[in-house]
C-alpha cells in the first residue's frame, strides 16, 4: 500500500460516518414548505408588538404587488398571486423564480429569489412616537429567505427578526422588546436578507466557552463568529509564531473587525472574534512568507470555521522604472516575460517604484516592463532567492516615431491604405501614401509594409543596419525618429542560357526547375516562375524573375533530376547562364592563413561560396564538409574562380582562388582564408537591461585601400546570450544597438569559450 493509498484510506475512514449525526430534513422542509409555526411566528410576533406597544393597528394601508409567479401565503395554504394586485393589512408573500415588487405610498421593496416576507402593519403615527429616526416605514417585516431590498432613501424599518440584516451586516433581535430601527443610508437602499437557515436565537455563549464558531451576541443583537485557525510553514509544517491576520469584508453585507494582528508565542494558532455572517477575505501575513488569502463564507450560525493556513516563503522583486532620460515612469506595466496575464502584473507608482510579488523563487525568470509612451524593457536571468527581496532598475527603451511614405513603381505612385507594422503597432497609409507609427525603440526596429492581394510584404532593410538613421528627438511624445520610405517597385530580371551535353549537343525538351536560394524573400515579391523547358537548340529563357536574388537551377529529365548550378540576378538585367552536363569535379580544402591547418566552413557561409567558370554568370555551389574539405561536382572543364557570391564574400575574408579543371580528371585546390571563431556574448545596458537585437559590426581590410564593413544582426537566445562569428585575427568588434552608444569589444587574447559580457551605454539624449 503506497503512502497515498494509506492516506486516502485514512481520510476515507475518517469521513465515512462523519455526517451520521447530521439531518438536513428539517432545514429542507423549512425551505421547501412553509412550516406552520414559522409562518405564524412573525405574524404573531408582529401582532404582539403591535398590541403591546400600540393600540391602533392601521390596517387600511395598501401595497401594490407586482409578481410573475409569486404566492400569497395564508394560514390555510397558499394561493397564486395575480400579476398585479393590491393587498391590505398584514400579509405574507413568497417569491419563486421572479422577484416580487411591492409598492407602498412611500416605499418600494423588491423581494427576490425564493424569498418569503411577512408584513405586519403599524400606524405610522404610533411608530413615530417610538422612534424619531423612523421616517416612513410602516411595516414589520420578517424575511425567511431570499433578499428584500428597499429602494427609497431614508426608509426605516422595524425589524423584529434576527434574520433581518442591513447592508452593514447589522442584525436585529427577534424579541419584540429588543426591536430596533433600521435606517437606510443617504443614497438609499436597504437590503434585508436571510441566509435561509431560519431563526437563530440561541442563547449567548460566555466568551471562552466555545473556542470558535457562531454565537449570539446579545449586546450587539447579532450573530457573531469566532474564527479560529492555525498558521504554519508549508515546507516544514512548523507553526509560525508571529503573523498578522487581516479580516476584510468580501461583500457589502459583512462587518466585523478589519484587522487582527496576532503576535507572540501563539504556537501558530489564532482566534479572531466578532465577525458577522457574510463573506470574508482572510489574509495572513508573516515576515519572509508570501501572503495567503482565503475566502471564508459564514452562511449559518452552525458554521464552525477553522482556517488552516500554510505559508510559503515568498520571493519579492522591487524596482524602479525610468525613461531614457532617467526620469521615473508612472504606470508602466511590469510582469514576468511570457506570463503576464496568468502570473499577474503590477504597475509602477508616481516615483516609478513597483513591487512584484509573483516572482518565482530561486528560478531564473525574465522581467518585462512596458509603457505605451516610454517603450519596453526586458531583464532576463533574474533570480530571487527563496524568501528574499531583490531590487532592479529598469530603463524603458523609449519610443521611436517612424514616418515615411509607401510608393509603387518607377514613377513613385503613392500607395494608399497599405498596412505598415512595427513591433505590435500598425497603421495604414493615407491618400498620399504617408504613414506615422510609434514603436518601442528596441534594438533595430524593423518596420514592414504589407499591401495588395495576395499581400506583398517588404521590410525596412537598411544596407548597413548599424547605420540606420535613427535620430534622437526632443519631442515629449517620442524618444527618437526615423524616416523610412518604401518603394514597392517590382524589379525583375531575365535568365537565359543553353544547356548542352558534355559533347556539346543541345539538351532538348528538358524541364528546368527554379528555386530561390538567397536574397529576395520579403522584399517586394511573393512569387516567380518555377520552371521552364529547353527548346530545340537547348536554350531556355525565364522572364520576370525578382532581381537582387540568386536562384538554383535543376534539370529534370523523366524521373531524373540533377543540379546544374546557381545564378545570381544581382541587378534587374538579363543574365546568361550556360550549363554543360559534365562529370568533372573539384576537390578542395579551406586552409587557415595563419596556422596552415584546414578549417571547416560554417554551413551558412558555405552557401554563399561558389565556383564560377570564367566569363560566365552561373556558379556551381560548394558542398562543404565538417573536416574543412569541399567538393564541386557535375561541372564542365575550364577555368574556375572560387569566391564568395556578391556580398557574402565580405564576411569570409577568403582569397579568390582560380583553378583549371581538366576534362575527366578531378582537381585538388586549396582556398586560403581565415578560421572563424564563434563567440557567445551577453549584451546588456548599464542598468542590466537586456538589449534586444544588437548588431555586431567589424571592418575587413582588403589590400591597400579596400575596406569592407561587415555587419550582422545577432539573435538572442532564451538565456539572453547571443552568438556571432568573426575571423580569428580580428582584434575587435563593435556591438551596437539603436539608442545605445556603440561598444568596442576587444577579442585579442580572449577565449572564445568564455562568455563576453558587453555593456552598452545609453546614447546621451540631446
Amino acid at each position, binding site marked *: 500500500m503506497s*503512502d*497515498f*493509498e*494509506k*492516506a*486516502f484510506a*485514512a*481520510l*476515507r*475512514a*475518517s*469521513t*465515512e460516518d*462523519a*455526517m*451520521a449525526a*447530521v*439531518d*438536513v*430534513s428539517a*432545514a*429542507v*422542509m423549512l*425551505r*421547501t*414548505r412553509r412550516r406552520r409555526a414559522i409562518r405564524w411566528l412573525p405574524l404573531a410576533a408582529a401582532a404582539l408588538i403591535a398590541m403591546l406597544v400600540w393600540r391602533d393597528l392601521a390596517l387600511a394601508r395598501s401595497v401594490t404587488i407586482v409578481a410573475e409567479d409569486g404566492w400569497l401565503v395564508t394560514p390555510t395554504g397558499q394561493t397564486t398571486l395575480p400579476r398585479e394586485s393590491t393587498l391590505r393589512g398584514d400579509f405574507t408573500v413568497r417569491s419563486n423564480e421572479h422577484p416580487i415588487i411591492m409598492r407602498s405610498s412611500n416605499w418600494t421593496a423588491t423581494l427576490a429569489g425564493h424569498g418569503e416576507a411577512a408584513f405586519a402593519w403599524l400606524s405610522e403615527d404610533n411608530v413615530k412616537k417610538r422612534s424619531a429616526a423612523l421616517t416612513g416605514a410602516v411595516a414589520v417585516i420578517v424575511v425567511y429567505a431570499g433578499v428584500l431590498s428597499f429602494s427609497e432613501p431614508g426608509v426605516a424599518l422595524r425589524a423584529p427578526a434576527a434574520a433581518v440584516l442591513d447592508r452593514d451586516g447589522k442584525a436585529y433581535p427577534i424579541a419584540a422588546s429588543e426591536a430596533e430601527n433600521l435606517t437606510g443610508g443617504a443614497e438609499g437602499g436597504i437590503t434585508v436578507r436571510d441566509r*435561509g437557515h431560519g431563526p437563530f436565537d440561541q442563547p449567548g455563549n460566555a466568551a471562552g466557552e466555545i473556542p470558535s464558531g457562531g454565537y449570539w451576541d446579545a449586546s450587539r443583537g447579532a450573530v457573531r463568529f469566532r474564527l*479560529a485557525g492555525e498558521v504554519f510553514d508549508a515546507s516544514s*509544517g512548523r507553526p509560525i509564531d508571529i503573523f498578522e491576520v487581516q479580516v476584510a469584508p468580501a461583500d457589502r453585507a459583512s462587518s466585523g473587525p478589519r484587522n487582527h494582528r496576532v503576535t507572540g508565542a501563539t504556537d501558530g494558532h489564532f482566534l479572531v472574534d466578532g465577525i458577522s455572517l457574510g463573506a470574508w477575505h482572510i489574509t495572513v501575513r508573516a515576515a519572509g512568507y508570501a501572503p495567503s488569502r*482565503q*475566502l*471564508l*463564507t459564514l*452562511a*449559518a450560525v*452552525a*458554521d*464552525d*470555521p*477553522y*482556517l*488552516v493556513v*500554510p505559508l510559503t516563503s515568498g520571493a519579492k522583486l522591487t524596482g524602479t522604472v525610468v525613461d531614457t532620460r532617467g526620469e521615473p515612469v508612472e504606470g508602466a506595466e511590469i510582469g514576468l516575460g511570457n506570463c503576464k496575464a496568468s502570473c499577474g502584473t503590477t504597475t509602477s507608482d508616481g516615483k516609478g517604484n513597483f513591487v512584484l510579488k509573483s516572482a518565482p523563487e530561486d528560478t531564473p525568470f525574465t522581467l518585462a516592463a512596458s509603457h505605451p509612451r516610454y517603450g519596453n524593457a526586458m531583464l532576463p536571468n533574474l533570480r530571487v532567492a527563496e524568501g528574499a527581496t531583490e531590487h532592479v532598475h529598469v530603463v524603458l527603451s523609449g519610443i521611436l516615431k517612424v514616418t515615411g511614405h509607401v510608393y509603387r513603381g518607377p514613377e513613385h505612385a503613392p500607395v494608399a491604405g497599405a498596412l505598415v507594422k512595427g513591433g505590435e503597432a500598425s497603421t495604414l497609409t493615407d491618400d498620399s501614401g504617408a504613414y506615422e507609427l510609434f514603436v518601442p525603440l528596441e534594438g533595430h526596429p524593423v518596420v514592414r509594409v504589407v499591401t495588395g492581394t495576395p499581400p506583398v510584404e517588404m521590410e525596412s532593410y537598411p544596407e548597413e543596419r548599424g547605420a540606420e538613421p535613427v535620430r534622437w528627438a526632443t519631442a515629449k511624445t517620442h524618444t527618437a525618429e526615423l524616416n523610412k520610405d518604401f518603394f514597392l517597385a517590382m524589379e525583375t530580371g531575365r535568365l537565359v542560357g543553353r544547356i548542352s551535353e558534355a559533347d556539346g549537343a543541345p539538351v532538348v525538351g528538358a524541364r528546368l526547375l527554379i528555386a530561390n536560394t538567397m536574397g529576395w524573400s520579403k522584399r517586394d515579391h511573393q512569387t516567380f516562375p518555377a520552371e521552364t523547358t529547353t527548346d530545340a537548340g537547348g536554350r531556355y529563357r525565364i522572364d520576370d524573375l525578382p532581381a537582387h536574388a540568386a536562384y538554383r537551377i535543376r534539370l529534370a529529365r523523366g524521373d531524373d533530376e540533377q543540379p546544374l548550378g546557381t545564378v545570381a540576378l544581382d541587378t534587374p538585367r538579363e543574365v546568361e547562364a550556360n550549363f554543360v552536363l559534365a562529370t568533372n569535379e573539384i576537390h578542395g580544402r579551406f586552409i587557415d592563413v595563419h596556422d596552415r591547418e584546414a578549417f571547416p566552413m560554417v554551413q551558412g557561409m558555405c552557401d554563399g561560396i561558389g565556383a564560377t567558370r570564367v566569363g560566365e554568370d552561373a556558379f556551381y555551389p560548394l558542398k562543404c564538409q565538417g573536416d574543412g574539405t569541399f567538393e564541386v561536382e557535375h561541372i564542365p572543364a575550364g577555368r574556375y574562380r572560387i569566391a564568395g557570391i556578391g556580398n557574402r564574400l565580405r564576411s569570409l575574408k577568403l582569397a579568390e582562388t582560380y583553378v583549371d579543371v581538366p576534362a575527366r580528371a578531378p582537381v585538388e585546390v586549396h582556398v586560403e582564408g581565415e578560421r572563424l571563431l564563434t563567440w557567445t556574448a551577453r549584451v546588456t545596458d548599464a542598468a542590466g537591461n537586456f538589449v534586444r537585437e544588437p548588431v555586431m559590426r567589424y571592418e575587413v581590410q582588403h589590400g591597400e585601400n579596400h575596406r569592407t564593413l561587415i555587419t550582422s544582426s545577432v539573435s538572442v537566445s532564451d538565456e539572453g546570450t547571443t552568438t556571432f562569428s568573426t575571423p580569428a585575427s580580428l582584434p575587435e568588434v563593435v556591438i551596437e544597438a539603436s539608442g545605445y552608444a556603440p561598444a568596442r569589444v576587444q577579442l585579442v587574447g580572449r577565449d572564445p569559450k568564455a562568455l563576453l559580457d558587453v555593456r552598452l551605454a545609453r546614447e546621451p539624449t540631446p
Partner: protein
Amino acid sequence: MERFAVLRGYCGMTAALARLDPMNDSPDDDAAGLARGEHGALRAIIGNHQQAVLRLCRRYTGSAAIAAELTQDVFVALWEARASYRHEGKLGRYLLAIARHRCLRYLERNGRFVALDVDVRLAGDSADAGAVARDLERALAKLAPEHADVLVLRHLEEMSVQEIAELTGVPEGTVKSRLHRAAAELRKVYP
C-alpha cells in the same frame, strides 16, 4: 443485478454494505409523490439519501457545516425540479450528480476548508492515521477543484473510472488523464 452493481460502485461500498446503501434506490423512494409535490415523499427521499450526499459533500469541501449547507441545497434543488425530474430508478445517482456539481461550484468560488474534526474523530484511532488524513485534507485543499474532484470520486468514493465517466459525463480517457494529472499535482503538495 447489473444495475445494482453499477449503483453499488457509485456508493463506493462493499457488497455486504450495498444492501444498506442509501445510494441505491430505496423501495421507499416515492418519485410519483415527489412529482405531485408531496412533502412526505421528499422527507422520505431525504431520509434515504442524505447520508450519501452529506458524505460526498463533506469529502469535497472538507467541512461538515458546508456539507450540510450544500446537502440542503441539493434536496431543495430536487424539490424545485420535481416537475421535470423523470424517475428512472436512478434517483441516488441523480442526487450525487447534483451534489457534485454544487460542491465543485462551491469550491471554485470559496476554496476548500480543512476541518479540525478529522483529528477529533480519529482520537480513538491511531494518532498517525489522523495526522495522515489531515495532511491529505490540507494537500487536497491546495488542488484545483477539477483535480480534487476526480481524486475524491476515485479514492474516497471509490468509484471506478467508468463510473466517474458516467457521473461526470466525460470520456473515460479524459477521466484517466485527469486522475493522472491530479495525482501528479497532489504529489507536489502532499508532504
